[in-house]
C-alpha cells in the first residue's frame, strides 16, 4: 500500500473516540538495512505537516517553532502493535494503547 494512504487517516480508540490524524510513520533501520515500521505519529488538532519542527534539530525561528508545536500540541507516537485494525473509516487502536513521545532525536 501507499504511505500517503496511511497519512491523514483518522485514528480512533476502542470506544470510537477520535484522537487525531496520522501525520507521519516512523520506521527503524534494521541490521540488513531494511526499514521496519515502528509506529505512527498522531496529531490531535491538525492534519498540517510539522515542517520539520518535530525534531530536536530544528527549533528556530522561535515564533515558527512555538506555532508549529502549538498546532501539534498533544501529538504522540503509537507503537504499531498497538494498532488493532485498519478500516476504511480509520485506524482503530487497542485497549490500553500507550501514547509515547513523538519527538525525533
Amino acid at each position, binding site marked *: 500500500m501507499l*504511505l*500517503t494512504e496511511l497519512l491523514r487517516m483518522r485514528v480512533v480508540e476502542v470506544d470510537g473516540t477520535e484522537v487525531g490524524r496520522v501525520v507521519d510513520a516512523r520506521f527503524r*533501520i534494521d541490521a540488513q*538495512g531494511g526499514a*521496519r*515500521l515502528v509506529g505512527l505519529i498522531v496529531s490531535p488538532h491538525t492534519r498540517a505537516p510539522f515542517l520539520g519542527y518535530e525534531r530536536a534539530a530544528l527549533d528556530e525561528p522561535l515564533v515558527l517553532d512555538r506555532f508549529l508545536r502549538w498546532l501539534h500540541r498533544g501529538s504522540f507516537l503509537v507503537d504499531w502493535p498497538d494498532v488493532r485494525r*485498519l478500516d476504511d473509516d480509520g485506524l482503530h487502536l487497542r485497549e490500553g494503547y500507550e501514547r509515547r513521545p513523538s519527538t525525533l532525536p
Partner: protein
Amino acid sequence: MIPRPHPEPGRLVDAEFQVLDRQVLDRNGEPVVTVDDVEITDIPRGVELDPDADAPVIENLLSGSAVLGTRLFGGRPPESRWQRIRWSHVTEIGTAVELNTTADRLDASWTERWVRNHLIGRIPGGRHAPD
C-alpha cells in the same frame, strides 16, 4: 570514503518528513527523481491485526506522473503505473536519498533517457561538455 551499503542500523526515519518529496541521487550524485510516494507492505483492511506479526516495511520508493498526479489531485494511481526503486538500493537518507546504483539502470529515469536519445542527444553539441 567507502559508501555505506545501507542506512545506519538502528536509525529512526520518519517517512513523510525524511523520505517523501526528497531528491533521489544515484551513486554518482546524479539526480534521478523526487520521491513521489512510498510503497509499504500491504496492511489487510477490516481484519484484526496480530500484534506479534512482523510490522510492515518500506518496499519501494515510487515516482511517476500517475503517482504524483494523485498526490496533487486525489485518487489512487493504478499499480501498473508505479515506477519503483527498490528500498534495497537505498544507502543513505540525509538531505537527499542516496542509491547504490546508477540512474541509467533504473526504470524511474526512462523519460530522461528517452529525451536524451530522441531529442537532446541529437542536437549538435548535445553530448559534449560546454566550452
